């Protein structure tokens, strides 16, 4: 029985990028409905964005405003290059991507790949970071205009628009490619390593910048800037300056480079988009190792938790341990901590060293000092603990199971701290030892360890409270970098608050390192362990009480709206 199915020759109206922009605005608007605090956070985010944009604008416009053409190319190449690099790396490492329009939602609609990609790109333009970048980059247009007249300004504007699109497409392409890799069971460990390497680029980069700043030889820097100007990182941003300096041919080639880059990125993105769209329907063939060892309880407990008693606390620790590894979102966070935790202290201490030998040092002493080392260790400890700032958000609605079983808040928080520490404490130890070796000061190990564990313990305490009071839901997306609209700023704010809080509570350790001298080298570790451990227990005790009073509200906070 053949039912005549008529296929319409073409839809009555073409779907354009404008539809996606309107959809995004509508979703954003609906998110604000009746949620005053969300509006407030959003406004705050916009203000921050405008502030940074204004600062960036003037920095990039300086050569034009001062009529100083010598540094125009340099500033355009380095400024633009940094913007691009920031767009590529920061979403992966810190901020995640705004997934207000989840590509998977479009899987069933008859949209061509081209329509979807251009539409999503256009929608991505409607965000605070994108607008802030646009304002910042407008400084380049001003520079080009003042130095080279209207033609230069026009080419500069074109370049800036292309540059912005390259940033957006690059960020999307990179995060969705990594999302696809982290989802796949076969290559996810490879993805983890790659991610680590990428994040590790941040370290040498800063060393490079520091070295460059110390270079008084501006001509050599100029040479570097010219090279950067021809890479995809600098090409779109420097086109306007080239016209202003009378190199119209170079400008055209640079615009072509930008267009080609954009094309490649969009193609790459559309490829990984498809895998992401299929990915939500099925996460690929399941790995089913046979030969179950032992009973159910024995299976639950990973070897690292073998010491735990087979009771409520033990079960919570075991489950959390499994989750830190099996959940792509959590694993991505762990990797970030590991990488940033290694490179920031290396940077700060080695950077401080090179600064001070130049004589222009702000950091005391002719060498990295116990106080400086303590400070950087406090940063690492606080950073590690801040991963837990939205620990209940990771669970989403599955937290209901703990609520139904009536888990007391204190047990819950203590278990979560213990499970996270199983991964992080060895990591922190390695970091401290590695840094002591790199600095050639093994006798500082105690000071480092003390500051590290004091800050980590204080961080655990503060984040326990933050995670109970400031939880927000994460999208049930297969992309571990995805955030709900507006959650980006919430995340940033909570991160800032809890990091500053942890650091402040751990400040006595810097003071101790600065004032107490050699006695501190021996005292720091035991005092730090006691201080951090005590803080963590006290935090779990107090936050646990709060948790007991708002378990259902917490569940509602972390349950994604659909």
């Amino acid at each position, binding site marked *: 029985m053949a*039912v*005549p199915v*008529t296929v319409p020759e073409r839809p009555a109206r073409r779907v354009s990028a404008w539809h996606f922009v309107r959809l995004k605005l509508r979703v954003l608007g609906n998110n604000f409905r*009746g949620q005053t605090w969300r509006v407030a956070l959003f406004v705050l985010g916009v203000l921050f964005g405008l502030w940074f944009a204004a600062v960036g604008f003037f920095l990039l416009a300086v050569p034009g405003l001062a009529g100083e053409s010598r540094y125009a190319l340099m500033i355009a190449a380095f400024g633009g290059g940094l913007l691009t690099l920031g767009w590529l790396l920061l979403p992966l490492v810190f901020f995640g991507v705004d997934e207000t329009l989840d590509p998977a939602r479009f899987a069933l609609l008859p949209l061509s790949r081209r329509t979807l990609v251009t539409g999503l790109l256009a929608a991505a333009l409607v965000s605070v970071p994108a607008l802030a970048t646009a304002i910042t980059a407008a400084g380049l247009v001003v520079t080009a205009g003042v130095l080279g007249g209207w033609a230069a300004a026009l080419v500069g504007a074109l370049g800036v628009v292309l540059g912005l699109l390259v940033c957006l497409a690059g960020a999307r392409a990179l995060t969705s490619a990594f999302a696809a890799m982290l989802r796949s069971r076969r290559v996810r460990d490879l993805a983890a390593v790659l991610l680590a390497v990428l994040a590790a680029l941040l370290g040498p980069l800063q060393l490079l910048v520091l070295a460059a700043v110390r270079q008084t030889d501006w001509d050599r820097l100029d040479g570097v800037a010219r090279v950067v100007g021809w890479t995809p990182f600098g090409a779109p941003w420097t086109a306007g300056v080239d016209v202003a300096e009378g190199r119209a041919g170079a400008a055209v080639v640079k615009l072509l480079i930008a267009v080609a880059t954009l094309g490649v990125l969009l193609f790459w993105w559309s490829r990984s988009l498809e895998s992401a769209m299929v990915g939500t329907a099925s*996460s690929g063939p*399941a790995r*089913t*190792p*046979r030969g*179950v060892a032992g*009973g*159910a*309880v*024995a*299976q*639950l407990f990973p070897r690292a938790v073998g010491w735990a008693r*087979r*009771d*409520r606390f*033990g*079960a*919570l620790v*075991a*489950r959390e341990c*499994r*989750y830190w590894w*099996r*959940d792509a979102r959590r694993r991505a966070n762990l990797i970030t901590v590991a990488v940033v935790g290694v490179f920031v202290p290396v940077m700060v201490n080695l950077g401080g060293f090179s600064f001070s030998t130049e004589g222009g040092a702000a950091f005391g002493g002719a060498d990295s000092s116990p106080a400086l080392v303590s400070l950087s260790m406090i940063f690492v400890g606080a950073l590690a603990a801040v991963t837990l700032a939205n620990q209940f958000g990771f*669970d*989403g*609605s*599955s937290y*209901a*199971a*703990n*609520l*139904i*079983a*009536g*888990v007391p808040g204190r047990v819950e928080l203590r278990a979560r701290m213990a499970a996270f520490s199983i991964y992080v404490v060895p990591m922190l130890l390695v970091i401290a030892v590695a840094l002591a070796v790199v600095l050639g000061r093994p006798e500082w190990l105690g000071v480092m360890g003390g500051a590290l564990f004091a800050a980590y313990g204080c961080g655990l305490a503060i984040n326990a409270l933050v995670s109970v009071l400031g939880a927000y839901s994460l999208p*049930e997306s297969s992309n571990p970098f995805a955030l709900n609209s507006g959650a980006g700023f919430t995340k940033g704010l909570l991160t800032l608050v809890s990091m500053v809080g942890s650091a402040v509570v751990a400040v006595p350790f810097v003071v101790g390192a600065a004032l107490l001298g050699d006695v501190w080298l021996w005292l720091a570790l035991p005092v730090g362990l006691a201080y951090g451990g005590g803080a963590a227990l006290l935090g779990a005790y107090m936050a646990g009480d709060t948790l007991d009073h708002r378990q*259902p*509200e917490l*569940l*509602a906070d972390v*349950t994604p709206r659909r």
Partner: protein
Amino acid sequence: MTDQHPALSLRGLAKRFDTKVAVAGVDLAVPTGSFYGLLGPNGAGKTTTLSMAVGLLRPDAGEARVLGYDVWADPVRAKSLLGVMPDGVRLFDRLSGAELLAYHGLLRGMDPAVVDQRAAELLDVLALADAGRTLVVDYSAGMKKKIGLACALLHGPRLLVLDEPFEAVDPVSAALIRDILHRYVGGGGTVIFSSHVMEVVERLCSHVAILAEGRIKRVGTLAEVRGDRSLEDVFVEVVGGRTATGEELSWLSR
């Protein structure tokens, strides 16, 4: 002492979301040993009511008692008597079935040896043992319902609260779940579950309540509510609805 109380009693439960009243004062007494069906159309407030009854959602007003213990004032006692399978809530699905059961059992303070033994039995009976170490996130919808039921049953609760236990379950699994629930009630347990499938409710339940627009519209034993008509007729009459005249949607037929 608990036997003098109804297995579950709700008094004046109410919940409002923003401007929408989801549940407008529900009173319900579920007798011990009954098989209770909570019927209602989509959006009637079934999930909201059951969530408030088991302590997942704080009610604006009213109280819920499990065998006499107030769910909100004495949650520890109440929750130890309860087994719950919520709907639309994820399980800790990055565990395997056995791991999930062990987690739930230990969370309930059970002896590890008992957990092991009961988990193996449940997995076996629910035909989930073959899944081995497959993570629950990779289970089919029906398997997820079954492992959810297993989690609710593991600690031997006196009252089972199940939200849409038969949704997305194939007939074979549904029959299996029905059998298990029958045996559970036969052994002195009490079940309350929500559904909008009349056949299931008519076949299983001793008592029925019809919920619509956040209020209980009909309540009683199955015979009382149904009278001499079919349950579906009563339901449609109570809930109200419209039937298509055939004029609309003419473009559907060619």
